[in-house]
């Protein structure tokens, strides 16, 4: 979806334009927010953050919106900034603001740790590749259960399979994933820290 398309939609029906933008990007925005705040915020906080992002986006579309390119990049920037804001506000509430964690979350690598970050990103790619290699529905179960922390009932509703199947498949898929990662020599704990 591009800025021009959005402007055309806004002219005909602002409500429909907002709905279209939401449907197009809600999963993308949720993934960005979850990825940034997974270890720091509760599910409710993340939902708040996502709704804040869309409220701001709707407001920007409503005013003089001049962005012409792919909207995904624009959404990405707003989502990341909001997630970092949310992280800071949560940290301030807890009085445990960690500078190291902040630099990590805000993705601003220094010269010294670029190599480490690159390696870490490579490992992420391999992990995602291996998860996809598990095939469906195992890869979805693995991601939804262990990364997104959803329970068997929620996953079963999402994937239209029984909770018992989710329970069993998740355990087996995890074993397979571990084996696959071992074969790729990325199972040592240091790399996972």
């Amino acid at each position: 979806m591009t800025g021009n398309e959005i402007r055309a939609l806004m002219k005909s029906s602002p409500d429909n334009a907002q709905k279209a933008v939401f449907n197009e990007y809600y999963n993308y925005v949720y993934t960005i927010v979850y990825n940034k705040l997974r270890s720091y915020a509760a599910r409710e906080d993340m939902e708040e953050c996502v709704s804040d992002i869309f409220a701001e986006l709707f407001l920007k579309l409503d005013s003089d919106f001049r962005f012409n390119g792919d909207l995904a990049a624009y959404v990405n920037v707003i989502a990341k900034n909001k997630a970092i804001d949310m992280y800071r506000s949560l940290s301030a509430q807890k009085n445990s603001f960690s500078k190291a964690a902040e630099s990590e979350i805000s993705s601003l690598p220094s010269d010294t740790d670029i190599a480490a970050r690159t390696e870490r990103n490579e490992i992420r790619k391999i992990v995602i590749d291996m998860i996809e290699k598990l095939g469906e529905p195992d890869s979805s179960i693995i991601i939804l259960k262990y990364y997104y922390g959803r329970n068997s009932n929620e996953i079963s509703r999402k994937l239209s399979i029984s909770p018992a199947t989710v329970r069993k498949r998740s355990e087996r898929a995890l074993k397979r994933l571990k084996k696959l990662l071992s074969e790729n020599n990325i199972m040592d704990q240091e790399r996972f820290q």
Partner: protein
Amino acid sequence: MSDFKHTYPKILENAEDDIIERMSEKYSPLDEDEVNRIFSKSKSKYNAMKSSAEFADAEEQDEEYINTGMSEWKMYRIRSFFRITEVAAACVLVIGGIMLCLKNLKAPAPTNENESPVLYSVTALSTSHISESISVTTVGVDFSRSDLSEKKDIKTSLTTLSDDLNNTTADTKDHTLTDDKKVNETTITNGSSKTDDEKVVIGDYSAMSSRLSYDEVFRIADNSETRKEFKDSVEAFQPYPDQESTTSYGGEKKYWFNDDGTEGITIQEIDSRLIILYFNNNKSINKRIYIASEIREYEDIELKEKQLDCLLIRDRNNLVNRNLQYIPLGKLEDYINYSQGSSSFSEFWQKVMIHSCNSPDRWSRSDPMIFIYYLEDDDGYILVDLNNACATYISENAPDKSMDIISNKGTLSEQKKQAAITAVNNEYDFSVSQINE
């Protein structure tokens, strides 16, 4: 395996854009209800932001109009008028103040004979806080006032905490009831329903201070290795509980998650054990939470105690929807081998507990105690009934394959089986009432 479950999702955090795009294209954790909820939230926030932006624009426009040359004479008149009014108001205030002072100097204020009497009663109360290294005794004074004319009972508590550790401090303060008392120093309840041993502890934090939430409690519990660490973290996060009481069996603190105190946690200290009880009166939920690592301290005590710990750990895990993530699943053959290799049910039960890390997948919360263990390679599960000292295998797909694994005193009744099966299918803890139904 358990570490791997934690570490592999962690590596995916804070990923680069390309990985996020891949993940968002392939996996969607949100269901329809969540999507609709987020959309309506976004819309309502957008509407609020829009209306406040319009309001701000309108204010800006007003200011612009006032600052134009056309309205200069008007502003001048308004300012003069206000200046005169201000001077007149100041004069009235000064004269009024002088008159009042003179009047008070001449004679004391007459007492109204018809005014109803105000009774003050003073009750001493004592609350003990016991922790591992710190012992502070708090003595406070409880003032209550009965205003007979208004038929109100206003109760005010004042508690003074002593900073001296291992000392006892008794502070008694002259306390006069006034309407302008600081909110954070007093709590006033009309027709207080608090029992004598449930005194309201007054915190000195503001409304902006951090308060515990459902998720925060579990986050702290997850990061706490010991009971003391958990307690310290809770106190660091929210220094004062919303309610504190001392009962015959130990201390109890309540932290509310909402303003009316219908949801929250109770932290009980009984015989050096820390029991955390989650309550939600709106949904009639009462659950126990427990810090898993604490079980190390109870390794050498009776089996019955271990069962209790086991129940609590699992309950906690269940609350955070992680109940199936960290526990290795067994096979039917494992349980058959445990049964065949055991001379008693107790021995069998010990082996099952070790195998399952003292964490069944489902259980009944009180007598009759039934535990459910899922199996790895089958759609069935194992039911262990402690009262009848028996264990049964239930096959979900082929009921005729179901069989008793061990039965010392008796077998599991059909009613209990059905309750357990329902509990498994719905992924909830079944209770005695459900079994008895």
